[in-house]
């Protein structure tokens, strides 16, 4: 990295953080600290919602996904706009009417205190662990790319976030997210323009799109009804709706964003803004991944994108020789493939099919070589990761983009990590103070007391996240473990909220027992069955509603007979 890159990277990060701290210093009370004085305009809310959802992995992993499997992942977001409408019509007015700080306060007014504590507790467990992963996932990739120890990248991301989140609360989170989002979008567009610029002279954006399309990277919609395929139009519309409803409607890290709105209309417009822009934004990120794929049809790609793994293989003389032999074969195949792809860029009619077939044969051979390379990596060190999807885009950036732009793209990734972590810390602090501390432990403190306690809770959760991120590498398959953990609790939380919003018949005791039953059944399925973990969301939610209905019915019948 050049001095210019360092200047751009740290200049951008420090400017955003410094401005955020400066603009939002001096919160005088808890309302100001946790709800930002209800002063946010719709565009700030909208950008803040988008920045919260866009974690560093969004920018590292999504282009890699398009590079490997095409742009079908876009379908996952089709349910999101519908969820935004449902939340705007039915959920936001309820939160506004009750003037709540957290989503879980609603549960007490609708059901009872124990249901509120259950909801808050499930959120704290799940989000507390996830905050560590939000820092750890980019930190491990950046440490591998930059050659820094993991602890450096973790502490940089963590400490910058803690500074402004503790200092300015919700307002600082939203203010900084507005600028972080501008950096993220601007950085990605610049990256996209550079990919096109780096293509051969006779390949413009039209030819690149044609190549990506003919090589299967632009299969955006899959209308098949296939339960095993994760990304189809139907799973996107139904499953995506389900996930978006629970994430935006019941997860405090998102609820806090729109509760800081100046009015109900501003909050609704913020959600609409997110609903309008989310799919186009994901399309742009995925399309950049498809363009990177085209770039590597004309420029030699590494056999395996994580250079750190290759470096470790090279330390072993025997393995190094085998690996180099594979690299040589891979290079020979590339020359042949480049010729075919060049022909494809200008081919018409029946010619296209023949070329596609020939390229597919070469691609299969390449994949075989990649599998052999992965086997060597695994043989060198069992602990080395053999999935390199997350490294595709960052490797392209580091190897090919000019000075200054590399710094900007790294700022995009750091900004994304910081923006989602900030929302998580802010939400964890709000829930700890409002639903647990103020409601159950110390009810009669002064405003100043609660303000200081809120700051201390933010600091506490920040330190927990950094600590967890630093030691996360000791656990195997950690990201998947946290996803599983999330799915185990998300369904139950959504079930409680949906019951509250739409099934008036079910009362507090019934929903509480229903939620406990649902959670036990989900845990049973987790430990004693092979069920795919994404289904835990559906199972937990359905069970809360179903068992709540039965318990309420039995209770009512008993009351009548008495």
């Amino acid at each position, binding site marked *: 990295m050049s001095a210019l890159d360092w200047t751009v990277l740290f200049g951008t990060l420090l400017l955003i953080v410094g401005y955020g701290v400066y603009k939002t210093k001096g919160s005088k009370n808890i309302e100001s600290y946790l709800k930002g004085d*209800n002063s946010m305009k719709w565009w700030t809310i909208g950008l803040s919602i988008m920045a919260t959802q866009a974690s560093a992995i969004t920018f590292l992993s999504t282009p890699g996904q398009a590079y490997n499997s095409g742009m079908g992942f*876009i379908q996952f977001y*089709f349910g999101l*706009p*519908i969820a*935004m*409408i449902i939340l*705007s*019509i*039915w959920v936001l*007015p309820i939160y*506004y*009417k009750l*003037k709540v700080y957290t989503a879980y306060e609603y549960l007490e007014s609708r059901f009872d205190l124990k249901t509120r504590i259950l909801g808050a507790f499930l959120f704290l467990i799940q989000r507390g662990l996830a905050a560590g992963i939000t820092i750890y996932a980019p930190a491990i990739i950046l440490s591998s790319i930059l050659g820094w120890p993991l602890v450096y990248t973790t502490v940089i991301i963590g400490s910058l976030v803690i500074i402004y989140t503790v200092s300015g609360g919700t307002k600082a989170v939203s203010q900084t997210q507005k600028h972080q989002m501008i950096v993220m979008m601007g950085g990605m567009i610049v990256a996209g323009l550079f990919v096109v610029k780096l293509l051969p002279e006779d390949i413009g954006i039209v030819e690149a799109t044609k190549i990506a*399309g*003919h090589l*299967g990277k*632009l*299969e*955006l*919609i*899959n*209308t098949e009804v296939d339960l095993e395929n994760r990304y189809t*139009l139907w799973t996107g519309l139904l499953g995506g709706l389900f996930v978006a409803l629970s994430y935006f409607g019941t997860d405090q890290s998102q609820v806090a964003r729109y509760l800081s709105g100046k*009015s*109900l*209309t501003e909050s*609704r*417009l913020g959600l*609409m803004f997110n*609903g*309008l822009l989310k*799919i*186009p934004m994901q*399309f742009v990120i995925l399309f950049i991944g498809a363009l990177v794929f085209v770039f590597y049809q004309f420029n030699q790609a590494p056999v395996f994108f994580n250079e750190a793994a290759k470096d470790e293989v090279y330390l072993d003389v025997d393995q190094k020789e085998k690996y180099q032999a594979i690299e040589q074969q891979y290079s020979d195949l590339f020359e042949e493939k480049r010729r075919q792809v060049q022909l494809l860029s200008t081919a018409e009619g029946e010619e296209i099919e023949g070329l596609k077939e020939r390229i597919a044969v070469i691609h299969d051979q390449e994949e075989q070589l990649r599998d052999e390379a992965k086997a060597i990596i695994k043989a060198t060190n069992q602990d080395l990761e053999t999935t390199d999807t997350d490294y595709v885009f960052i490797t392209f950036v580091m190897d090919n983009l000019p000075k200054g732009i590399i710094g900007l793209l790294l700022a995009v990734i750091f900004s994304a990590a910081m923006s989602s972590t900030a929302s998580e810390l802010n939400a964890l602090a709000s829930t700890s103070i409002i639903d647990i501390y103020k409601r159950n432990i110390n009810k009669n403190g002064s405003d100043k007391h609660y303000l200081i306690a809120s700051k201390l809770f933010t600091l506490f959760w920040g330190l927990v996240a950094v600590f967890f991120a630093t030691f996360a590498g000791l656990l195997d398959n950690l990201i998947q473990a946290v996803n599983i953990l999330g799915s185990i609790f998300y369904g139950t939380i959504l079930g409680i909220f949906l019951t509250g919003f739409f099934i008036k018949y079910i009362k507090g005791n019934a929903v509480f027992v229903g939620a406990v039953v649902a959670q036990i059944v989900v845990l049973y399925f987790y430990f004693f069955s092979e069920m795919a973990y994404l289904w835990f969301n559906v199972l937990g939610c359905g069970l809360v509603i179903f068992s709540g209905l039965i318990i309420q019915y039995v209770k009512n019948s008993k009351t009548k007979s008495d």
Partner: protein
Amino acid sequence: MEDDKDLEHNNPPVLGKWKNFYWLLIIVLVSLIGIFYAITQYFA
């Protein structure tokens, strides 16, 4: 804060000439799915 009347009536948000933002969102979603479907079919 909105007054209670607005909360009860569930008025859709208004921005410029778009009197009902919900329909705008549905139209955009359907159009995007249509465009994406056309792209997929074109290269199929």
